[in-house]
């Protein structure tokens, strides 16, 4: 197109600061795909369109607020200055654009004679879009009024603007600290994607030997960089980078002889990308940089915006609840099993960052795991001390923690609590599912189920956000290691009599079972032995009250201590009693029941009736339950009585997702069961093509294992994620289909 050179030269204007009172100037750029040729340089052209506010309102304004910490403020100021310079440029460019627009209009008119002068610019745009299958993206990044000189008048505008979008109520009061990124979707028929920061065509250089340059539609979405083929409607976009936070953007090295190139450097590799022009390249780099910056603030992003208003208003209330650890408990006890996604608005001042995710919160996995997890009831404050905006998580206990408490958790060792960062560590789908089914409120309901009612009776005293380290450690140890409040003294006392009798009945079966237990759970024994001693220190009664049904005694039993034969007897007794419910919990994926049993000392890792909880969960296709068990000490290659590993069962049942999950976690696919069959043999017999493929790819990778930089790692990853994604979709479809069926039958 003749206009393209003109237009691309002014691309930079797509990042403009523009809000005037009544008219928003929106610089739109088109990426037109004219034909099937991959390498044809596409023509970009600019159109300036005037939208009035009502127009904007209907065209879906998506607003994203990212708060900026003081440190980055300076950086932002610099950028701001740059931008001001550019505004001057912009004025010049606008003139150019107008000229370009005229040319373009003239072309349009001649090309489509029916289109009269009377046709507004917008309809022109729309027509053009339809005709050439134009994907239009426009980005307007508006820097809100951090800069004092620009500030005052603009702030008013911004608020108005936001009001019109219906989001104003969620903006933090400290508006001057926020940066708004706005994205407009245009009448091209593209689906509205609220989380997309920037999108458009880029060339990516493929990683294979040919280094082919492919033109793809890229999107910066959440913390990911995605790209898709032209036929993107059919295939889900490929994730180029899962987590931009750990990436770096820089201009391409000078030996690349193409213009408009930049690099996205990740810990494992470097992506080389090319924009259609130098200025577009600048825009992309800037957008990526901003995203990365925002993600770094990230943890802060959510914190910063929640903390600033909270300091004034909410902190008072959170102090109250934190200083009194009973209140969370009492609130939490009435929580029912069904986890409801909490309304972000209700989570004590959590602010605008949630807005883009609201729509997709329940069904779409598009919102980040972090955001989803934060919305689980109770997760807005630290599970232990109640301080706001916790950013750490104990992945096996399913509680969200502040940094101080996470330190105390770490000190307990990974066999008790595995601490990760919600912001910096990657949370895969399996782990996300675990964390979504647990959460502070419900887990506290388990671990603090029997907190004495009078605060004075609680030893050690509950902690709050100001507690010193020793107090935190004491509380956290009592809560999770000794599990002092997970078990009620009363229940113990009351049940002791009955249980003693029951215990006698079951005692006969002790010996055989004990062998089984010891065989498979030696690892758990070691752990529990510690806990046992801890328990005895802390709880002088437990030794005397040997109460089989009560969790305390189960814990004793699980320790497998040789000296306490009676305790072992009790424990086995308790296990046979509870085993059915554990089995049910594994089959139905009821993590809370599993955690409760675990908290009460039940040995989840032991062999029962020739199988283990992990085997049952795997066989039942309960991804989250499998993950939970693995996180809490289940051995991934555990054997059942037929020497099947969980992988054998997953292969037999055709549970592709479980196979992916187990392989990801390093399951050995080379073990033969009692029929001397490996999981691969079983998958072949059952002709599960996906599973066979998964095993074969893994085997192939292992052939390369001597390499420190295994060339197959990425391939295997891609294959696993490919297959897992498809399996997940199929499972979802089946689920909805069966739901439909049941609802139909129930109607009949």
């Amino acid at each position: 197109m003749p206009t393209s050179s003109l237009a691309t030269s002014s691309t930079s204007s797509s990042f403009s600061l523009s809000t005037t009172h009544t008219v928003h100037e929106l610089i739109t750029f088109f990426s037109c795909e004219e034909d099937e040729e991959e390498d044809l340089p596409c023509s970009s052209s600019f159109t300036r369109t005037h939208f009035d506010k009502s127009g904007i309102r209907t065209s879906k304004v998506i607003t994203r607020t990212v708060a900026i910490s003081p440190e980055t403020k300076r950086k932002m100021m610099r950028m701001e200055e740059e931008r001001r310079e550019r505004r001057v440029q912009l004025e010049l460019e606008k003139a150019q654009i107008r000229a370009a627009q005229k040319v373009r209009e003239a072309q349009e008119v001649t090309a489509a004679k029916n289109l009269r002068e009377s046709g507004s610019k917008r309809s022109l745009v729309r027509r053009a879009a339809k005709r050439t299958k134009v994907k239009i993206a426009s980005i307007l990044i508006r820097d809100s009024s951090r800069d004092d000189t620009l500030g005052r008048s603009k702030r008013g505008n911004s608020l108005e603007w936001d009001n019109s979008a219906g989001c104003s109520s969620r903006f933090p009061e400290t508006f001057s600290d926020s940066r708004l990124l706005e994205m407009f979707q245009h009448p091209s028929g593209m689906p509205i994607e609220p989380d997309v920061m920037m999108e458009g065509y880029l060339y990516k250089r493929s990683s294979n030997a040919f280094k082919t340059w492919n033109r793809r539609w890229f999107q910066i979405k959440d913390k990911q960089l995605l790209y898709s083929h032209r036929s993107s409607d059919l295939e889900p976009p490929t994730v180029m980078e899962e987590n931009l936070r750990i990436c770096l953007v820089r201009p391409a090295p000078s030996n690349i002889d193409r213009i408009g190139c930049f690099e996205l450097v990740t810990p494992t590799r470097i992506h080389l990308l090319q924009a259609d022009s130098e200025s577009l390249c600048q825009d992309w780099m800037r957008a990526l940089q901003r995203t990365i910056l925002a993600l770094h603030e990230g943890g802060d992003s959510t914190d910063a915006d929640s903390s600033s208003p909270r300091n004034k208003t909410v902190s008072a209330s959170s102090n109250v609840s934190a200083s009194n650890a009973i209140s969370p408990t009492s609130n939490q006890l009435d929580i029912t099993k069904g986890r409801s996604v909490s309304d972000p608005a209700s989570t004590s001042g959590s602010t605008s960052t949630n807005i883009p995710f609201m729509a997709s919160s329940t069904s779409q996995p598009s919102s980040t795991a972090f955001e989803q997890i934060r919305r689980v009831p109770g997760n807005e404050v630290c599970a232990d001390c109640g301080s706001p905006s916790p950013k750490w998580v104990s992945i096996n206990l399913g509680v969200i923690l502040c940094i101080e408490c996470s330190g105390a958790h770490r000190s307990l060792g990974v066999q008790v609590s595995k601490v990760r960062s919600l912001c910096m560590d990657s949370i895969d789908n399996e782990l996300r599912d675990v964390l979504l089914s647990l959460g502070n409120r419900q887990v506290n309901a388990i671990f603090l189920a029997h907190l004495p009612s009078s605060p004075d009776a609680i030893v050690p005293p509950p902690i709050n956000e100001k507690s010193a380290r020793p107090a935190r450690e004491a509380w956290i140890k009592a809560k999770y290691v000794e599990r002092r409040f997970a078990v009620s003294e009363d229940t113990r006392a009351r049940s002791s009599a009955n249980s003693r009798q029951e215990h006698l009945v079951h005692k006969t079966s002790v010996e055989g079972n004990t062998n089984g237990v010891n065989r498979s759970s030696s690892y758990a024994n070691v752990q529990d032995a510690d806990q046992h001693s801890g328990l005895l220190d802390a709880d002088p009664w437990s030794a005397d009250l040997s109460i089989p049904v009560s969790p305390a005694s189960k814990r004793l039993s699980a320790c497998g201590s040789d000296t306490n034969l009676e305790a072992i007897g009790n424990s086995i007794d308790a296990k046979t009693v509870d085993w059915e419910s554990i089995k049910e919990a594994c089959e139905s994926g009821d993590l809370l029941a599993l955690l409760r049993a675990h908290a009460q000392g039940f040995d989840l890792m032991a062999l029962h009736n020739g199988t283990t909880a992990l085997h049952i969960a795997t066989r039942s296709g309960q991804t989250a339950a499998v993950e939970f068990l693995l996180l809490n000490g289940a051995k991934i290659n555990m054997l059942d009585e037929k020497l099947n590993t969980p992988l054998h069962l997953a292969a037999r049942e055709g549970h592709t997702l479980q196979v992916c999950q187990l392989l990801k976690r390093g399951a050995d696919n080379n073990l033969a069961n009692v029929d001397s069959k490996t999981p691969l043999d079983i998958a072949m017999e059952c002709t599960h093509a996906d599973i066979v493929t998964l095993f074969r790819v893994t085997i192939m990778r292992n052939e390369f294992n001597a390499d420190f930089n295994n060339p197959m790692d990425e391939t295997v990853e891609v294959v696993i994620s490919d297959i897992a994604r498809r399996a997940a979709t199929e499972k979802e479809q089946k689920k909805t289909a069966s739901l439909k069926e049941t609802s139909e039958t129930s109607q009949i």
Partner: protein
Amino acid sequence: MGSRDDEYDYLFKVVLIGDSGVGKSNLLSRFTRNEFNLESKSTIGVEFATRSISVEGKTVKAQIWDTAGQERYRAITSAYYRGAVGALLVYDIAKHVTYENVERWLKELRDHADQNIVIMLVGNKSDLRHLRAVPTDEAKIYAERNQLSFIETSALDSTNVEAAFTNILTEIYKSVSNKHVGSDRQGYGGGGGTIIPAPPTEPPKKQCCNS
């Protein structure tokens, strides 16, 4: 195979495609293990084998992916072609329909594989002279028109199997080494899946953490 197999200058991913029953798996086993099985079963999912050959003094390791021709036993598509630099598109010279479907397979390659992928059309089962349904010339012309290399093989009697793989690997080698002249840094982007043109001084092998 053996330890020599671990050292290579180039690693090329080559995929075998074509209808069910044309002999892909037997071509693979003939080339990599010198085995042939008259009663082989349908491939389920994906199979792999590797073999290193020498091309112009360089060791080229071919990692050959073999997938089920039968739709219901196929697992991955885009990942199958991902990073592939060569494709052997196999048909059965005694079954005309498998030749007719070449078009369909080419389309699949166009959809999923790199545009520079080296494709070789392979008429397999050339030992079945009396049952021939696809004339050699016809296939040759078709291949030329579509810019494919062409060869007829027999996995059963070993005819041309070696040649087929050697030819395609040489062609890939040439294509790749040309690309690299003056293009940009070598080894850029690291283990991008398949092809690591190892820097001549330190093959990837040697960088192991043993040291």
